[in-house]
């Protein structure tokens, strides 16, 4: 018998303008979610799209397309639908390092709020686009990189990762642009610790529950929505797709 996976109508209770392009939407209900799990967010009349849960009652969203633009036009008191928590999430053990690029900090944030992260490497294009920098500072050993050098290390998070002695961590949780994650995987692999890496992937999803197949990856056929979104570095080393292409809404390949 198929068990219902409900879409819960929730009221947006608070909107936080995190950066010029990123907002956090807090809502009226808490979901029993672990770090790295996601939800399908229904923006009525527009679409339903996958979003990381940045807290048990919040999503943090970057304006990138039609659905997120519509979400940005919503106000406190408006209704959205939340289906979740979905996916496997991170499974941190021992000493934990988080590596985030841009809005990729969203699924990693609960690692800090739950007291699970030891070190947090946070990267963004520029200082004003650094997500959660204020709240993370003091909660965790925070190390910052910006592409333009306006704050922290001038350059990419990968340089800070090399400095941080990745082999001294048991779990390295990573989320950000795929080319950044590919570079991080390369460093972990060079240290012989790819298996300690846990990477949160983003793929086009229609159903979120593992049936439609739009988020299946090559060559394993694993579903990002159900078998992921978190995959180990070991698994990604076998991937012919990671860092090369994803698929659009029709299923056509789109190169990075």
């Amino acid at each position, binding site marked *: *018998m*198929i*068990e*219902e*996976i409900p*879409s*819960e*109508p929730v009221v947006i209770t608070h909107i936080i303008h995190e950066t010029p392009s990123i907002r956090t939407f807090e809502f009226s209900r808490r979901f029993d979610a672990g770090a790295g799990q996601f939800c*399908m967010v*229904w923006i*009525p*009349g*527009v*679409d*339903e*799209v996958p979003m990381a849960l940045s807290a048990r009652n919040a999503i943090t969203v970057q304006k990138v397309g039609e659905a997120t633009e519509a979400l940005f036009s919503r106000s406190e008191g408006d*209704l959205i*639908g939340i*289906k979740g928590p979905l996916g496997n999430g991170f499974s941190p053990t021992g000493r934990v390092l988080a590596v985030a690029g841009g809005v990729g900090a969203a699924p990693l944030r609960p690692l800090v709020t739950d007291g699970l992260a030891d070190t947090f490497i946070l990267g963004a294009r520029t200082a004003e686009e650094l997500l959660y920098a204020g709240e993370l500072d003091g909660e965790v050993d925070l190390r910052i990189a910006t592409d333009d050098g306006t704050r922290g290390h001038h350059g990419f998070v990968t340089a800070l990762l090399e400095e941080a002695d990745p082999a001294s961590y048991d779990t390295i949780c990573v989320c950000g642009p795929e080319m950044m994650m590919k570079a991080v995987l390369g460093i972990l692999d060079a240290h012989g610790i790819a298996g300690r890496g846990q990477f949160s992937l983003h793929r086009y999803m*229609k*159903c*979120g*529950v*593992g*049936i*439609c*197949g*739009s988020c*299946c*990856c*090559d*060559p*394993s*056929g*694993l*579903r990002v929505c*159900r078998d992921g979104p978190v995959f180990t570095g070991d698994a990604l080393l076998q991937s012919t797709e990671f860092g090369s292409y994803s*698929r*659009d*809404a*029709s*299923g*056509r*390949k789109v190169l990075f």
Partner: protein
Amino acid sequence: MVVLCPGPVDVAGVRLNNHLILAAGVLGTTGASLARMLSLGAGGVVTKSIGPEPKTGHAGPCVAVLDGGVLNAMGLPNPSKDFVGELDQLIGKPVIASIFGGTPEEFAEVATWFAGRVQALELNLSCPHAEGYGAAIGSDPEMVRECTRAAKRTGLPVWVKLTPNVCSIADFGIAAEEGGADAVVAINTVKAMRISTGMRRPLLGNGMGGLSGPAIFPIAVRCVWELYEACDIPIIGCGGVATADNVAELMMAGASAVEIGSAIVESENVFTAIAEELYRVDGGEDPCAIVGCAHD
């Protein structure tokens, strides 16, 4: 408890590894996911429905998992001809290409892309929520006949997937048979709808959708039964199959093999789980003997 002898199954021009086939539209967008389902025990797999032009499908929500069923309005998203390359890794495997079009000519064109690459074609004349496609033309017997004829020109075996959203599904089975179909597949989803009372709007982005899952299994049994009475070609059962006993029941109604889709929501291991219960090397019945036995 019905137990069958295991082994390859020849049905309507296709050699399957067992009686259990992955239904169209489920995990069928990539060659890798189809290969994975074969490795997880599916006796054959049907691809996502491929049409004449790339389509992005309907706006979401596209799928709602309900108590006992799945409601969907995907809107036939597909990469069109680009999909053909996905099958390179599956040549020689029991793969059936699901295709759709708006006219017999479009069916003919899409069908040619798959010649030599798949074991059979399955014509989607039954999707209940795509304007101009699927059930929109599959509820006209003349169109069913002509689209079948058009696809048959490839020389491939042609299965015709029928909609239950008609007064008499048998009439459409007969139309497919007249068009030269090698088998009919029954059923596609049942036209359905739910409204979110919290949101005060339809649960699916498209409004209307199609219901699958255990809730529609009795409809599938009835349709297979009626087709078995009316047609001479094999019937592939589909609709709400979730257990080994469901498989046996559809076969007794007249199905030579069955397709499984929504049960994947519970577990992608559903094929292995059903096969373990359904087949036994010593002591199993001849599967052919139970096909349609309830009619005797």
